[in-house]
C-alpha cells in the first residue's frame, strides 16, 4: 500500500516537531538552525558554511567546528544521496541543530524503504558497540576496499560521523507503511 503524501509528511513532521520540542524544552538549549523539506546541494553548502561561522562566533574551538562541518556534510549528503522520495516525488527530509552548554545535537531525518530499517539499525548498533580503535579499523577496511557507489556514496558516512562525534549514534525509525519509513539519526558532538 502506498502512503499518501499527507501521511508521509505527517509522520516526518511529527518526528521533526518532537525533536524541536525536546531541544527547546531546556532553557540552556536552543535550536541554531533547522530545515524541513528538500535539500539542494547549494543549501547543503550554505548550511555548512553558516554553521561554521556561527560556531566560530560562539567561541567553539576550531577542531570542534571542523568536526561539526564534517558531520553536517556527511549527514546532509547522506540525505541527498540516500533519501527516498515520497509518493509526491519529493525527498521529504529535515534537520535541526541544538546548541546546549556542553554539546551540540544534530538531528537528520529522511525517508528510507522500510525493508532497509533492519540493515541500517544493525550497521549503527555494530558501530556503537565498537571501541574507537575498532571504528578506525573498520574505516581503514572500507578505505582499502575503496568503492564509490553509483549514487556517489562511499559507505563511510555513519563511520565518519561516529569518528567525528566520538559518541554513540542515536536513531529513530518511524514506519509510515510497509514501503516507507522516516529514519532519524541523532549525532552528539561535545563542545569541550
Amino acid at each position, binding site marked *: 500500500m502506498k502512503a499518501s503524501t499527507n501521511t508521509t509528511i505527517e509522520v516526518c513532521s511529527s518526528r521533526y516537531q518532537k525533536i524541536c520540542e525536546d531541544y527547546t524544552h531546556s532553557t540552556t538549549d536552543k535550536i541554531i538552525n533547522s530545515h524541513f523539506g528538500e535539500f539542494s*546541494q*547549494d543549501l547543503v*553548502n550554505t548550511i555548512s558554511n553558516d554553521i561554521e561561522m556561527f560556531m566560530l562566533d560562539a567561541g567553539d574551538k*576550531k*577542531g570542534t567546528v*571542523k*568536526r561539526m*562541518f*564534517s558531520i553536517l*556534510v*556527511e549527514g546532509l*549528503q547522506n540525505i*541527498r*544521496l540516500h533519501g527516498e522520495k515520497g509518493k509526491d516525488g519529493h525527498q521529504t527530509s529535515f534537520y535541526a541543530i541544538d546548541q546546549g552548554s556542553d554539546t551540540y545535537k544534530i538531528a537528520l531525518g529522511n525517508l528510507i524503504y522500510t525493508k532497509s530499517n533492519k540493515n541500517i539499525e544493525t550497521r549503527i548498533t555494530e558501530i556503537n558497540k565498537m571501541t574507537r580503535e575498532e571504528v578506525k579499523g573498520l574505516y*581503514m577496511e572500507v*578505505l*582499502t576496499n*575503496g*568503492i*564509490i557507489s553509483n549514487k*556517489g*556514496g*562511499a559507505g*563511510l*558516512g555513519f*563511520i*565518519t560521523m561516529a569518528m*567525528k562525534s566520538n559518541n554513540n549514534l542515536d536513531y529513530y525509525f518511524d514506519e509510515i507503511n510497509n514501503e516507507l519509513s522516516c529514519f532519524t539519526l541523532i549525532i552528539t558532538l561535545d563542545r569541550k
Partner: protein
Amino acid sequence: MNLLIELGKNTPKISGDSARSILVIEGSSFPENVQKFYTPINVWLDSIAKKSSTLNIDCKFYYIASSSIIAVLKTLQYAEKLFGSSNISIKWRYEEADDDIRKIGEDFSHLLGIEFEFIEEPEEG
C-alpha cells in the same frame, strides 16, 4: 598539456604543470559526484606519464568528505601505478593543529606505502 580546475564552492583548485610534472590540489572537497570531478586528473596523469618518469604531488585540504577521501586515494593509487612508488614525491600540507587532515595523509601514506612529507602551516583567516 596543463590541467586547471578552478576553486569551487565545494571543490578544490587543481592544477597540473606538465613541464615541472607537478600536481597541486588545494581547498575543500565535498562534491556529490566525486568520480566525475576527479577523473580529469587521471587523464592528465596519463599524458604526463608518457613524458616524465617522476611526479610531484602537493596537497592541502581544509576539509575533505568521506567520498572524496576515497576518490583522492584512488587518484594517488593510479599515479603510483603509472610512475611507481619510488618515483612519486607527495607533500601533504595541513593547517596548524588540524589532526584530522594530517591523519588522512598518514592513512594514505600507510595504504600507498609511500612516505609523505607532512607540512604544518599557519591557519588562514
